[in-house]
C-alpha cells in the first residue's frame, strides 16, 4: 500500500479539524470520502495533496512523505504525484482559454513545448475536447464543461493519485454520467488511484470501490463499499444518512422482518423484492 495516512492531525485557529487519522488508500481503486458538512473531508484532501501541512502525523504518497518537517523545496516532489480538483471549478481557473489552463499546469512542471502539445492531444482524446473548445474561456463554459476542464487540468501532469472534491455537484444526470465515466476510465485504463469526496452517497455507491467515513474530524469507519454502507450501527450512531438503496433494505428488515439483502444496483434490488413479496 503506497498511499498511507499515519496519525494525521490538522489544527487551524485553535480548532482541531482532523484528529489522528490513520487510513490506507488502496491503489488503483476509487475511494469515496463521506461525512457530514464540516466533518473535515475537504481539509483531509487538502492535507493529502500538500495544500495544507499536517500539524501532526504524516502523509505517504508513494516515495514521498509530507509532514510538518517537510521542507518547501521538497513540496513539488511530493505534489507531482497528485492531481487535485476543487469543489468550485471557477476558483481553479487562471487562464483565458482552456488550452492555456492546461498548459499552465505543464509549464509549472517544466514540460517542453513538444511534450505540452502531445499532452494536450492526449487529453483532447480522453475528454472529447475539440480544437474550438480549447479556445474557449473556461469561465464562460457550462457547469459540466467546467468540471471536465478542471479534471483535465488536474491530471495533465500524469499524477498517480487523483483527488476530486465534489466532482458532480451542480451537474445534471447526463453530465454526472460523463464525469463518472471519466473517473472509471482514469482507474481502469490509466491505472490511477482516485479519491472522491462527495456527499452524494447515492451516486458513490454506484461507482466507488472503498469508502472512508469522517465524523467531526475523526475516521470512524473505512473499508470496502458494501461493508461500510451496511454498517448501519455506525451510520445511526453518527446520524449519517445511508444510501437510499441500502435504507430501503433496512426498512424492509425493520417493518416486515424480511432480509432481502443489500444491493448497489436498483435492478438487483428489484429482483430481491420480487422474490420476497
Amino acid at each position, binding site marked *: 500500500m503506497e498511499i498511507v495516512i499515519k496519525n494525521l492531525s490538522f489544527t487551524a485557529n485553535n480548532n482541531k479539524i482532523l484528529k489522528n487519522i490513520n487510513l490506507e488508500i488502496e491503489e488503483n481503486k476509487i475511494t469515496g470520502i463521506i461525512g457530514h*458538512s464540516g466533518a473535515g473531508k475537504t481539509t483531509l484532501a487538502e492535507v493529502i495533496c500538500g495544500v495544507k501541512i499536517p500539524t501532526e502525523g504524516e502523509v505517504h504518497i508513494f516515495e514521498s512523505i509530507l509532514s510538518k518537517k517537510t521542507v518547501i523545496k521538497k513540496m513539488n516532489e511530493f505534489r507531482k504525484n497528485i492531481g487535485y480538483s476543487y*469543489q468550485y471549478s471557477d476558483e481553479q481557473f487562471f487562464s483565458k482559454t482552456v488550452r492555456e489552463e492546461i498548459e499552465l499546469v505543464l509549464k509549472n512542471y517544466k514540460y517542453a513545448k513538444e511534450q505540452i502539445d502531445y499532452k494536450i492531444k492526449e487529453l483532447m482524446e480522453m475528454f472529447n475536447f475539440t480544437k474550438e473548445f480549447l479556445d474557449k474561456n473556461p469561465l464562460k463554459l457550462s*457547469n459540466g464543461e467546467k468540471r471536465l476542464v478542471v479534471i483535465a487540468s488536474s491530471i495533465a501532469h500524469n499524477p498517480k493519485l487523483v483527488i476530486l472534491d*465534489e466532482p458532480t455537484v451542480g451537474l*445534471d444526470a447526463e453530465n454526472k454520467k460523463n464525469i463518472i465515466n471519466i473517473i472509471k476510465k482514469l482507474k481502469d485504463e490509466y491505472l490511477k488511484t482516485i479519491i472522491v469526496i462527495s*456527499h452524494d452517497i447515492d451516486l458513490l455507491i454506484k461507482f466507488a470501490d472503498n469508502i472512508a467515513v469522517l465524523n467531526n474530524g475523526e475516521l470512524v469507519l473505512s473499508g470496502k463499499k458494501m461493508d461500510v454502507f451496511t454498517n448501519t450501527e455506525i451510520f445511526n450512531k453518527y446520524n*449519517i444518512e445511508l444510501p437510499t438503496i441500502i435504507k430501503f433494505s433496512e*426498512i424492509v428488515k425493520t417493518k416486515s422482518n424480511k432480509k432481502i439483502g443489500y444491493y448497489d444496483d436498483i435492478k438487483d*434490488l*428489484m429482483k430481491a423484492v420480487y422474490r420476497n413479496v
Partner: protein
Amino acid sequence: MDSIIEINNLTFLQGNKKVIDNLNLEVDRGDFVSIIGPNGSGKSTLVKLLLGLYESDCIKIDNLIVSKENIYEIRKKIGVVFDNPNNQFIWGKVEDDLAFSLENLNYPREEIRRRINEVSTNLGITNLLNKNIKDLSGGEKQKVALATSLITNPDILILDEAFCMVDKNAKKELLNYLLELHNTSDITIINITHDLEEVLNSDKIVVLNNGVIEDEGYTKDILREEKKLKSNGLDLPFSVDLSLNLKYYGLLDELIYDLDEMVVRLWK
C-alpha cells in the same frame, strides 16, 4: 389565484444565443415550485432575470415590473441562495453576515439579535455564529447562506442549487424546515435543482430545457412522466424509480414516494 410572479412572453439573448425563448409562467403566492432542467437550460439565467440583474418588462414580481425604478422594492421581497455561497457573503463572522441585511434596512439591534437567534436555531447553525465564514465547509456555508436569505422574512425565497454541497441528512432537515415554513406561512418558494429527491417536497414542477418550458404541473403528475424527464436529461428520484418498476411488475398499484409506506404496501 393571486400571482406573485408573472412572466409573459419572455425572451432573453446572450450574444447570439436565445437562453430563454418566449417563456410564460405564473407562480401563485404561497406556492412551492421546483424548476428543474439540464445544465444550460436557462434556470440560472431565469433567476438573474427575476432578481433584476437584467432588466425585463416581461416580468412582474408582486405586480411590480422588473425595472430600474422598482428594483429596490422588488429585491426587498426576495431572498436568494446561489449555488456558490462564496458569491453572496460579506465575509467576517457568520453572525455579522446574518446581521448585515437587517442593519441595511435599519432594524433595531434587539430585533436583529432576536432574528439571528431564531433563524440560527431553526437551521441548526447556532454553533457556527462566532466562526469566520472563510473557515466553514461548503455545506456549512450553504446553510449560512440560507439563513441570511430567510432572516429578512422575504415574500419569495429563490434557491438556485442551494443544497448542492450539503450532506444528505442536513438537506433532509433543511427541506423539512422549508416545507414547514411553506405550510405555516405564505412564503413562495422556488427551488431550482438537479436533485429530483428535493422536488418531492414541492407542490408543482416546471421542467425547463433550452430556455423553453417543456412541462409543468403538479409534482406527482410530472414525476410519472419517466420518459419525458429522461429526455430532458433528468434522473428520477430513487423512490419514484423503484415505485414505477414495482408498479410495472404489478407489485404496487400506484406511485409511492415514501419508502416506509412502500414497504408497508408491499408486505401488508
